[in-house]
């Protein structure tokens, strides 16, 4: 009996030890945490690519991509008046050296326009060796982080070799890794030494019980000596004078100092890449069959282009459902893709000037794994996404769709 108890205690100890000291590596950034209707109907990412994924310290990687700001922006989510194109990473293992929206350099936040199309480019410089999972993503004010597609990067090399030099408008070249550090530590050490001296001045003499007793017996005058008062007077006059003097010297040293910048970038949407007018789609009904993890969209599609088109892909919340019967660029291995996940009830291309009603079915366990099927229990049971149609020449037409979803529990 004792042996069993000891064994159980031993196992319990090992479990606790393991949980405490052997945590698993975090492999995600909460990309599924946001409610599905926000991920599907706010920022609709596509064509996200990386220039390389194996880097040395100081090497740069360029992340490019596009996104469409959904027209059917959820009513419960604040409009994108303040957004920030960010990169999800485990701390600054890379530094962001450049960022562009629609070709315009951008370092601040920006407002996005509903229905707008944007392309982006982010340049990252490897800072610390390791293997990291990065996503471009949008911080939406008061809504949260809407993740773009993620990718693994491997950085090798010596972290001490990392350099990040910047030239100020005064002409000084500074090292961002160490700039102001010695000065800051020096000032903290100086004030800390002064504070410690003041504390020691009092702590060196008997403290609590004797002082309390003496105070209660009316012997207060022995507790604060004339020397104490002199020192206090010196502090009262000296510290503010010193502070103001140091402040004035700093002003003289940095005469061109400016306040923190609080402006926002103004980025105009690009010419329409989505809902360009050549393909017009009206969604008539959408059902989600829960047991089959299958979404069926019944849509009336009008082809105003001069070429026959076919539905090749449906993408929502970074999940791509591919129609294998339509020729199109192959998705990369890094993406969340259902390679056989999309089917259409009519295999014939939609002819120019033809209007046809199609049943488009996206089926895959990814609906469950990516936590998208939860939208049927949302207060906003609507779905959004991008439909990609291709003609025989490989030209792509993109339509952003939005529809209510009816669950089926059969």
């Amino acid at each position, binding site marked *: 009996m004792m042996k069993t108890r000891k064994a159980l205690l031993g196992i319990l100890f090992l479990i606790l030890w393991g949980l405490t000291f052997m945590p698993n590596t975090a492999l995600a*950034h909460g990309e599924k945490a946001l409610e599905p209707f926000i991920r599907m109907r706010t920022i609709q990412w596509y064509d996200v690519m990386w220039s390389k994924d194996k880097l040395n310290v100081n090497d740069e990687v360029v992340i490019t991509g596009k996104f469409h700001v959904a027209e059917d922006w959820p009513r419960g989510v604040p409009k994108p008046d*303040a957004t*920030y194109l960010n990169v999800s990473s*485990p*701390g*600054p293992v890379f*530094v*962001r*050296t450049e*960022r562009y929206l629609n070709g315009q350099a951008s*370092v*601040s*936040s920006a407002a996005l326009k509903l229905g707008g199309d944007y392309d982006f480019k982010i340049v990252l410089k490897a800072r610390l060796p390791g293997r990291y999972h990065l996503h471009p993503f949008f911080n939406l*004010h008061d809504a949260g982080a809407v993740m773009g597609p993620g990718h693994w990067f491997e950085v090798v090399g010596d972290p001490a070799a990392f350099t990040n030099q*910047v*030239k*100020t*408008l*005064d002409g000084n070249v500074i090292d*961002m890794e*160490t700039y*102001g*550090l010695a*000065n*800051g530590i020096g*000032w*903290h050490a100086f004030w*800390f030494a002064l*504070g410690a001296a*003041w*504390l020691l001045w*009092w*702590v060196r003499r*008997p403290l*609590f*019980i*004797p002082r*309390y007793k003496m*105070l*209660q*017996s009316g012997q*207060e005058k022995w*507790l*604060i000596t004339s020397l104490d008062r002199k020192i*206090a007077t010196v502090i*009262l006059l000296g*510290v*503010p004078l010193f*502070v103001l003097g*140091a402040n004035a*010297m*700093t002003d003289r*040293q*940095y005469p*061109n100092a*400016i*306040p*923190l*910048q609080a402006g*926002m970038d103004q980025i105009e949407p690009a010419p329409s890449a989505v809902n360009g007018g050549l393909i017009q789609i009206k969604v008539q009904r959408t059902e989600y069959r829960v047991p089959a993890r299958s979404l069926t969209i019944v849509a009336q599609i009008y082809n105003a282009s001069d070429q026959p088109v076919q539905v090749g892909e449906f993408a929502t919340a970074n999940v791509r459902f591919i129609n294998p019967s339509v020729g199109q660029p192959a998705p990369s291995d890094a993406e969340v893709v259902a390679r056989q996940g999309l089917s259409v009830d009519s295999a014939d291309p939609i002819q120019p000037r033809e209007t046809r009603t199609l049943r488009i079915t996206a089926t895959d366990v990814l609906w469950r794994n990516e936590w998208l099927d939860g939208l049927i229990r949302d207060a906003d049971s609507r779905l959004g996404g991008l439909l990609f149609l291709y003609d025989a020449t490989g030209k792509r037409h993109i339509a952003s769709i939005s529809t209510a979803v009816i669950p089926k529990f059969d």
Partner: protein
Amino acid sequence: MTTNALEIPTKPYTGEKARLSRAYDYLILVLALFLFIGAFHLHVALTVGDWDFWVDWKDRQWWPLVTPLMMITFPAAVQAVLWSNFRLPMGATLCISCLLIGSWIARIFAYHLWNYFPINEVLPATMLPSALVLDVILMLSNSLIITSIFGGIAFALLFYPSNWPIFGMFHAPVEYGGAQLTIADLFGFQYIRAGTPEYLRLIERGTLRTYGQYATPQSAFCSALLCTLMYPLWWYIGKAFATTRFVKNI
């Protein structure tokens, strides 16, 4: 002969009593050190938060308003205990020193070693000059009202000039991405913070700028006014939560 609170020595203890009393002093001091490092650091992290964490949050409008207002709290409460009962004018310096110890531990271990931020991006602000002045004003005046008014004002007004020698150099201008930024802004752009998007720190609002670009003094005086009110509030909180009944029985 019984021992009671009225049996009061006419001079400090000597011999064994002095030794025991001193051991008690050290016991309390060590406990106070850890208590204030933890509690005050947590208080500041929850109330001042990003303004103290990041160099690019230390703006001229809200930082000098919020920081002294939230940092005068524990010093006032601890001064109420140490001064009223022991005539020890070190409550504010003790609290702020403990806060800085906690802040530096967090910046080095949590921000730098764990999350890879360069320490210069996460330098904490100091309030030790303000705390020293607050302590000596209380000591020299022995008055709650005078300390509230003049100590509270000094505590707030000294904050920005005390920290400008540390952070002024981060306000040198840089041309980057077609815009003028401070070096501090550049830290925010370059060193990726997934959880603290840049728009959250776009906090300079309103029309203080129209007063000849003197936003900081106005924020500092506003903070000074509020500190004169915050100080007595936390003084009485300190009084209410402190007791000397155990000391009386010794």
